[in-house]
């Protein structure tokens, strides 16, 4: 099955699913960061230009900080998100899903020198397009990953219906699907709800609107409502 997930199994047998981010959201995040830094630098240079050579010296220092330290500071101390990444809901993590630490962060940002070749990030773009987890060369070498950190879209509250015990023998993932159906049925048309419920006619024993109601009843029971 085609997906953008990176699955990691912890020693406890728990599967962590990292939702790897690809070229397009990352390019947009970078653009936001670039514009922000440009604005900050320009705004700082206006008063600094009054101070002659000292001003341009401070300006050069500021430029250095914005180019090299900004990303590292944001990634290590502000949850793996520069402002642009925050706006796009992205996050830098280490390849095993742990928060990114200082050395990998410095490494991946230093390797921008390679990714930026030949001046417009063409190497980085090609790398993110080819790599299955959308990593640029700096990420590959530093062992980091950019993931979607935002919340997944969720359905609404399960509508309240008299709870009803489902037939025994449902596996946990099957129970989860019934609850998910109940959560999302607010977004579906009534016809579609009935189509879906009819699929489970062998289970519910009714069809049409009655089947939908019965599935909602199961979901209420599974959620522990009384």
């Amino acid at each position: 099955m085609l997906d953008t997930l990176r699955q990691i199994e912890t020693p406890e047998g728990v599967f962590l699913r990292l939702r790897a981010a690809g070229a397009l959201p990352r390019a947009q995040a970078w653009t936001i960061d670039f514009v922000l830094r440009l604005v900050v630098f320009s705004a700082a240079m206006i008063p600094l230009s009054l101070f002659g050579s000292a001003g341009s010296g401070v300006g050069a220092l500021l430029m250095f900080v914005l180019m090299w330290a900004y990303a590292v500071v944001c990634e290590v101390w502000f949850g793996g998100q520069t402002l642009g990444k925050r706006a796009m809901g992205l996050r830098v993590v280490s390849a095993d899903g742990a928060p990114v630490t200082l050395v990998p962060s410095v490494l991946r940002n230093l390797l921008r020198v390679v990714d930026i070749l030949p001046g417009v990030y063409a190497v980085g773009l090609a790398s993110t397009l080819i790599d299955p987890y959308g990593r640029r060369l700096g990420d590959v070498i530093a062992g980091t990953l950019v993931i979607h950190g935002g919340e997944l879209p969720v359905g609404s509250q399960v509508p309240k219906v008299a709870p009803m015990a489902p037939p025994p023998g449902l596996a946990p993932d099957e129970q989860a699907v019934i609850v998910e159906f109940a959560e999302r049925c607010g977004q579906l048309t009534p016809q579609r709800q009935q189509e879906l419920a009819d699929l489970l006619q062998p289970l519910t024993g009714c069809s049409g609107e009655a089947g939908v109601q019965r599935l909602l009843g199961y979901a209420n029971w599974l959620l522990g409502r009384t």
Partner: protein
Amino acid sequence: MELERITVALRPRTAREAIDLGAAMLRAHARPVWAAWFVFSLPIAALCIATGWLLQLPWLATLLIWWLLPLFDRVPLYVLSRAVFERAPRWRETLRGQRQWRWGGTIASISWRRIDSHRALRLPMELLEGLAAKQRRERWRVLRRPIGADATGLAFGCLELALVMFMGAFLFVLLFIPPELLPDWLRGSVGGVAHRTPEVTGALIAAVAYLAWSAIEPLHVAAGFALYLNRRTQLEAWDVDLAFRRLRDRWLAAGRVAAAVLLALACAWPHGAWAQKTAAPAEHKDVPVTHIEDTFAAPAGKDDQRFAEAAAQAFRDPRFGGEHKEHAWMPRQWSDKPKELKPGPMPLEGIGNALALGMKWLLLLLLAALVVAIAVYVARRARLPVLAAPSRRQAVLDTHLEAIEAQERLPEDLAGATQRLWSGGRRREALALLYRGCVEQVATALQLPVEPDATEADCLRSARRLDDRQQRQRAEAIVRAWQYAAYADRYPRDEDFERLLDGWPARHGSAA
């Protein structure tokens, strides 16, 4: 459409994740997508470049190729839409398939709707659903509502990426020119050649732009298609549908239900059956092939000669050419350095210089501090006894122990103290105190010492050995309440808490 045959993992995704899914789809089917893309678009692009060349309008070729991108978009969409549900078609099938897809939407998007930032999203709806115009408008409104902004962002993002590819190609070539050759070459090529041979430059730019779009435009289409799939998954709960089918199959196979009536899925993929008719492959076969090298050398050489002659003539003019010697007396102390290199006095220069001096010393101090810090670090690492500082962690641990010891003695009136803490809002402390009191009371009742490393489970175990059944239940209730508070941050209601306080062990004077 047979949903069971889908080869993409369906799950709720944000729109941006769906865009990345498009990239993954493209990566998985890169070969058939680009094979069909180049077979279809290369002749047209060559035709565009030739048109620009023949009409002497160097910008026309790039514009034409850009303008025709929505036409090319049909090809990757055909391959991907088949690949997602069946298998990726070969390029011959893809080209044949173009005949069966309607052309209305494509004609609209290469004429009055060319500047449409939602193109990638609109494309699958128009080509795959094939609805009538009125229904299509309704459908479009439903489809677009929450993801219109993402589709626009996608269009601009792809524009940005194509620009990166385009500039990257030129800068990449520039990277391999030795720097000593660079200035002359730059002057000779970009300035001179572009001016003197606009056709060659125009064709070159159009060709590179075509390659850049070839790299990015399939991504645009794939991401738009993935957005479309994601939106339909949302609207029609495809993932739930699939899971329900699996559940039903398992249920029936397990033989729990004897007979079942299966209803066919009403939602049918439009144009489900594709009549494979024989058709001629692509048009645009005979395009004149132009050799850039042939035309590149001739005019440039001729121009060079003309330029050399003109330059020689110019130098013969006494106003430009010739050498002059002039002698003059100059005072010695004035002639050491030209003044104009220095800019005029800046405002606030005094403050600036003071700041610069201060900064310099600050940086020097920082450097010194850094050196000292490194020296200390190295010395610590080498475990030199001189610099071994007392461990701070030890100190912290000691004070922590003291704090615990200070609280060690339980209050005489346990219930009262707990009640005060609870009503003061310190519910966690209240439960902790109650728990400790309970532990102590259990230990007293069993005539055992209180073990400092006993866990909650140990307490429960020892509580079960109590003779009195009510005491046993009460102790268990208290331990459970404490566990819920400590590990899940869930507190009992006020009346439940009151019940915990009632009688043993909080009021150990009274009977159970």
